[in-house]
């Protein structure tokens, strides 16, 4: 299987921006993850082939950057910032609230494949701490009550089979690749 036509088109649109083909590697990984939620060994091969790069060059980049998931994640990826400003403002409570509700530890995915919970470093939302990132979207100024509402809402969206949960800005700003 090869990279999807959508991904190829997006990469070709960017090609003129850079003097080297390798510069397209990180965009390619982002595009694949957007489609498949994680970077599989298969995807690594496809990207390496498409960009004429040795497999190792792709693999070493995938493993360097924390945003690239190396195993499948749930439909909703909850990423709780636990760095200093969020910690001072109650991120540990948010984390244990989610852990209790979903019955999983940090780094795990629920058995039904709906949620993955991760702990992340500073999201640059310190002024509105504590913050969590749900797939692409930020939710800021949370407390346990607001978080519970958010999780209820996410449950509803999942039950309704909504696509692209937590990706509001895709529709908001449609310009670009």
């Amino acid at each position: 299987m090869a990279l999807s036509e959508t991904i190829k088109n997006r990469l070709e649109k960017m090609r003129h921006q850079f003097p080297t083909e390798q510069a397209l590697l990180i965009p390619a990984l982002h595009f694949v993850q957007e489609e498949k939620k994680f970077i599989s060994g298969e995807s690594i091969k496809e990207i390496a082939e498409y960009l004429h790069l040795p497999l190792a060059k792709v693999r070493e980049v995938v493993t360097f950057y924390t945003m690239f998931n190396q195993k499948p994640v749930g439909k909703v990826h909850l990423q709780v910032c636990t760095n200093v400003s969020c910690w001072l403002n109650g991120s540990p409570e948010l984390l244990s609230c989610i852990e209790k509700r979903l019955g999983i530890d940090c780094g795990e995915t629920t058995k039904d494949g709906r949620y993955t919970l991760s702990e992340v470093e500073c999201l640059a939302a310190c002024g509105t701490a504590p913050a969590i990132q749900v797939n692409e979207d930020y939710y800021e100024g949370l407390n346990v009550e607001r978080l519970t509402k958010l999780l209820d809402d996410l449950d509803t969206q999942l039950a309704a089979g909504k696509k692209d949960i937590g990706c509001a800005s895709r529709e908001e700003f449609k310009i670009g690749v």
Partner: protein
Amino acid sequence: MSDLVITKNIHEKDSFKIENYLKHDGYKASARVCTTLTPDQVIDEVKKSNLRGRGGAGFPTGMKWSFMPKDSSKTKYLVCNADEGEPGTFKDRLIITRNPHAMIEGMIIASYAIGAHVGYVYIRGEFFREARMLEFAISEARANGHLGKNLYGTQHSFDIYVYRGAGAYICGEETALLNSLEGKRGEPRLKPPFPAQVGAFGMPSCVNNVETFAAVPYIITEGAQKFAAMGTEKSGGTRLYGVSGHIERPGVYELPLTISIRELINHCGGVRGGKKLKAVIPGGASAPMLSAEDIDVKMDFDSLMKAGSMAGSGGVIVIDETVCIVEMACILLKFYEHESCGQCSQCREGSHWLAQLFQRIENGGGTMADLDTIASLCGNMAGQTICAFADAVTGPALSSVRKFRAEFEQHIHQKCCPFKKDHKHIGHKASSVQGVPGVTHV
């Protein structure tokens, strides 16, 4: 109260849109620069303004631009550092979402000054929405003739592309950023050669922070002297302070560099809930922390350095009396342990050992000798590595012990954390450091 350089109009509706920016004479500075000034005149003006880099290092911007080779036939690149990863820093996000055209106009002016025709904005990967807003703003600028070929009827051409990072703190370091931009691991490079000689794709490159670029149109419009007069003798302009933590009104504030920490805290409504102040981290996580007694220091680069800390990225974290400094230092050191790129042994091993040592003390298993080990470990890290990351790790490590030694000793003597918590942090990182192997033989 001095004039506002960057945030003057950000409270207006849709302040990020180009029509709003144009309404306030936006893109007039870039047009004037391209049509009436020489590149050297632009660099001179920025030098005279005393603008210093707002990313963390505080390097004079005009001087950085003047390092770019003048008579080279090589392609040159301009790069905007929008990685904003320093914990406690969130000001660039405000510029990107509220006043992106100031940054774009600053980049146009810089590109003319250094002779670059391509610019990249390296934005952190988590900023999905911000990256899309930036693409939107760039497309607006292009549609209005401010980016593209033959700008303002001159020979100068310039375009900007957005490049998304993927969650590595180290990519805020400029040479790590350049490697990342080339599609590689974000590992910092040995210097020299500096980016002005060998930068992006092996070509001369200039990297500046979002806020630095956003200040440039004002300097051109209002004049270098006015900008310089706002600041201190060696550092011009205002600064964006991101104030967070235990503060009554957290947020981004544009204020003079001459403000003291005490004045800044009061400006933001004081410590939250009227509690007593314990500590302040004045310039992002890497800046050595200060205690409540130190807060009359002014926030400019030189004053903070004299006080043993640094102005860094302008992220001010306010910490009240209820916080256990040892536990907070653990949080910070776990961050550095996680983010060390691993190239240099001192940093890779040192940040790990420090995280373990601090956790051991927090857990009640520390000894007095551990405090000496922390100091010697830090001495073997700072200044010994390819980039300044190792120095950054020692910031919170050394300052927490120096400023709050009694609290560390209390943990050691009582064999527990004296700050009782009603919640227990049970995340992965916390559970993985219960045992402390590898530290005893330091």
